[in-house]
Structures are given as C-alpha cells and as structure tokens.
C-alpha cells in the first residue's frame, strides 16, 4: 500500500515546489435578490451570501488541514451585478463587500457587466460606478465583457473602459493604481471561472456551485529539470503527466468541498497560476525549456506547448473541466516575468502575441501613468480581436501607474506582487477609438 517514492513525491511537491490549490470559489446566483429598491436589494444580497457561504472558509481550512494541501484563497463569485441592480448599484457594491468580509473570503467577484453586443441602462450605471466602487471597497472585483466570437466587439464599451481604467487608477493612485488590479476587461468571458479579478457566476450556472482553481508552476518547472536537453516530445509528455497529478488533487478538493458544503461541484480550472514567490513562476517553465528570458524568440511556441500540454494532462484528471484552464502569464504576479521585463526581454507587443496561446490575456501589466485612455482602449480592442477571431477568452488587466514612467516600479503587495512599468507604443489612435459602434462578429461565428 505504501509506495514510498510516490508519497515522498507528493510531499515534496507541496513542501518544496509550491504546489497548492489556488482557490475554492463558490458561485452564488443572486438573480432572486433583485429588487426595484436598491437598499432592499442590497439587504437581500447580504443576507443570501452570508447564508450560503457561511461555512465556506472554515470548510476550506478543514480540508487544508486534513489533506495537507494549502488552499490559498477562498472566494465567492456572484451573478453579474448589472443584471440584478435595477437602480443605483452602489448600495449593492457596499453590501457585497460587507458580506465578503463577514464570511471571511479573500475576494468576491461579480461586480460585472456583460455588454459584448450592447449596454443596458443597468450596464451603463454599473460602468459609471466602477472607479468609485473599486476605490472604496476592499474585496470586490469587477469585470466587463466587451466582445465575443458570436457578437463581435462593442467598441463603445471598449472606448469607455479606457476612460474607466484611467479614472480608477487616478482614484487609487496612492496604492499604485491597485483598483485596476481588481478590474478586468474580457472578450469571451467564461461563466464558471474561479480566478480573480474576472470571476462571476454566469447566467447558465446553477443556484450555487463549487469551482476550484489549481496551481503549481513550480512543480512543472522541477519536473522539466529532469528532462534537460530532451526533445519537445519528452517535454510535452512530462508536462502532461505533471498536470494530471496536479489536477487530480484539484478534483479531490473540489469533490470534498462540494460534499461537505452540500453544494454541487461545478468545475476544476486546470491552471498554472504563478505567484511572485521564487519557485512558483510560469516564466521559469519557459526558461527551463531553454530560453534565456520569457520574451526571447521562441517564447510563444514554448507557451503554446505548455498551455496545450497542461490541458491534455488535466482533462482526464477531472470529470468537469472549465474556467480559463491553461497557463496564466501575469507580469507582476510572476517573478520570472518581472525579471524578463526588467531585463528588457519582454515587451508589451510580445506579451500580446503570447496571449494568442495562453489561457487568458494581458494581465497585471503596469504601464506609464500618462498613457492616454484611447491608447488603453486600443490595447483592449487588439486583445478583444485576438479573442474574437481565435474563439478564446482574452482579457486586459492593465494598471496605469499614476505619476510613474517606463522603468519605474509599482508595488501591490501579496499575491498581486510588484512590477516594472513597461513602455507603451506612443503613436496615436484617437480617431480610431472615437468611431465607436460595433466590430461585426467574424464569419466563423456563423456555425449553426
């Protein structure tokens, strides 16, 4: 029964290679809390979250203790607030933040609007409130879906998001624009994503569900150290085997949390999510493959292999796979990415090409504070176009560092990390962004 080698391998993964479960995220439907009176709506939301999620954190901690695997975050995702808020969304934001603090979760996501085709009045009200909400709440995360493969790109929303990101950055300037770290602009947003800042409980989701996001780039890196110099066939196979093992633990934790909380199991998100800690970096997997830094020529190919092998290895390990599933490439949250930007090896343009093959998009990138709203909108439009055409989720979570220029540093602390400010292409695009309207859905959206 005891296979010493296997047991020691598991223990080594956890104790030395930073293997952890990144998050147990409880999705909660709030549609039944909607009310024309914003205050009453807020009260119902507060009551429902506190009731449904009351055991989430201590159940997560119990599992952590018993199984000996760290579960770094416990989170909640809720129905996009613009669908619930019939009037002023501010009281709802305050209620969500209070409820998150009350049940003890690390983040609550879902201050969101889905406006890939167009905006409802509620979407507009929510958008206008984002800078204030993100600068006055602590645990709330916001996301806006501005494009989809089926609907095209809502360029009005893209234009507005440039302004909102600028405004949010300036309102949270004293914390290096931390508000923008809690705001993500999506194309093809997924409904069961457990990761922040983009988690929300989509309208196709059940009343509530347990979604689990795994992590473990350090484990993959260490596994690849044993196949140095081998051809890529061996590299891919090694990643698959490792991803399988990581995901099996995610599946175990998800099932156990679901059983103990009596809440249905939703999905396991097969992700490699880095942290700023050494030995927990996705970029270092790429360098282990033979690149001097992430960003060197070959990086996109290396990332494509990694992202695909993670999925292939993980898919068989869980009975329901979903979320964003793949390798994340945030800059400030990954020590190898930070090193690559500092060394000048990794540019915004290279990051953009990497997002064609990674699990999401441009993530946690600090840009100069004087970057214009149109430029940010242009970056969002480019990223949304990649998502729309390639039928994948893409996103922009970008932080204008107020008062700072390329080469300066920003510090967010904790899992959000720190980053050098990256230069942005200075050429103009105002007339392009001012057009507004919609970029039509691509031809391959016509699949029926």
């Amino acid at each position, binding site marked *: 029964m*005891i296979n010493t080698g296997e047991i020691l391998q598991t223990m080594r993964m956890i104790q030395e290679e930073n293997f952890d479960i990144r998050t147990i995220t409880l999705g909660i439907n709030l549609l039944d809390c909607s009310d024309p009176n914003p205050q009453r709506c807020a009260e119902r939301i507060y009551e429902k979250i506190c009731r449904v999620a009351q055991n989430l954190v201590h159940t997560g901690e119990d599992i952590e203790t018993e199984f*000996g695997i760290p579960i770094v975050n416990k989170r909640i995702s809720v129905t996009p607030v613009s669908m619930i808020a019939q009037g002023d969304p501010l009281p709802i934001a305050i209620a969500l933040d209070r409820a998150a603090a009350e049940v003890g979760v690390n983040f609550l996501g879902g201050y969101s609007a889905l406006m890939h085709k167009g905006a409802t009045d509620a979407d507009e009200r929510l958008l206008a409130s984002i800078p204030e909400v993100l600068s006055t709440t602590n645990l709330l995360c916001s996301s806006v879906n501005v494009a989809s493969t089926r609907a095209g790109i809502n360029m009005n929303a893209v234009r507005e998001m440039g302004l909102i990101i600028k405004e949010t950055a300036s309102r949270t300037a004293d914390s290096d624009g931390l508000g923008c770290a809690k705001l993500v602009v999506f194309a093809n947003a997924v409904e069961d994503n457990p990761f922040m800042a983009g988690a929300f409980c989509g309208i196709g989701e059940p009343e509530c569900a347990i979604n689990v996001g795994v992590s473990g780039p350090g484990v993959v890196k260490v596994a690849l150290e044993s196949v140095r110099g081998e051809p890529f066939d061996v590299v891919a196979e090694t990643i698959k085997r490792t991803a399988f093992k990581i995901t099996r633990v995610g599946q175990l934790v998800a099932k156990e949390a679901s059983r103990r909380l009596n809440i249905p199991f939703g999905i396991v998100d097969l992700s490699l999510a880095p942290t700023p800690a050494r030995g927990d970096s996705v970029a270092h997997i790429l360098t282990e493959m033979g690149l001097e830094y992430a960003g060197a020529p070959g990086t996109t190919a290396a990332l494509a292999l990694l992202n695909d092998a993670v999925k292939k290895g993980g898919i068989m390990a869980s009975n329901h796979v979903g979320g964003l599933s793949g390798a994340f490439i945030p800059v400030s949250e990954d020590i190898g990415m930070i090193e690559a930007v500092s060394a000048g090896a990794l540019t915004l343009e290279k990051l953009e090409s990497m997002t064609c093959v990674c699990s999401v998009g441009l993530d946690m990138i600090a840009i100069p504070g004087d970057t214009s709203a149109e430029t940010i909108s242009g970056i969002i439009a480019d990223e949304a176009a990649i998502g729309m055409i390639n039928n994948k989720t893409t996103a922009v979570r970008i932080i204008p560092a107020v008062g700072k220029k390329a080469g300066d540093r920003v510090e967010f602390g904790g899992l959000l990390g720190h980053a050098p400010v990256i230069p942005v292409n200075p050429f103009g695009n105002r007339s392009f962004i001012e057009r507004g309207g919609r970029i039509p859905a691509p031809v391959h959206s016509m699949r029926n």
Partner: protein
Amino acid sequence: MKRFQLSEAFLFMTKALISVTGLDSTGIIARVATRLSEMNINILDITQTILGGYFTMLMVVDLDGAHLSFEEIDNELQPVRDELKMTIHMQRMDIFDAMHRI
C-alpha cells in the same frame, strides 16, 4: 510491495498517512505507536528507513476508531513531537491515492 485484501470496510475507512522525520534515536516507533494506540488508532502499514542518521517513517493508519476529529488527533500528537523533537505530519491518504492512482 505488500498487498492488502481489499474488503469494503477497508475501502471506506478514513485512512491517513503519518510521516515522522528527524534525527534518529531509540524508541521513536514505540512512542508514536503507543500514542496512536491510546487513541484507538489502528496502524495499517509502516515503512521506515534511516539515511545518514536521519530517520524517516511513513505510517498508514485508520482514524475511524478514534472518535476524535482530525484536528484533535493532530493536537494529541503534539506532546510526541515535542518530546522526540521530530517532525510529525499527518494528512489524509486520499491525496496520495488521487495523485498516483487512476
């Protein structure tokens, strides 16, 4: 490798792995086993080696007889840790099965 006859009761018991590591001394197994026995925890399997004076023991135990919570059992092992100056780590066996068995 040893093979147990897999009875249904065996499959559904709450199994945990206890790892004991640290500098070797006399009576480690006896001390740990005694404490487990006092809590009515049955030992299902043991493997133990000494590498360069470093003691490593892995023990699979059945927690169901104990009528204590996981955390309480873990706390009960604290005096043994302090006395032997060993690292004693307990975790549910399921995580190893999940990772290494299809």
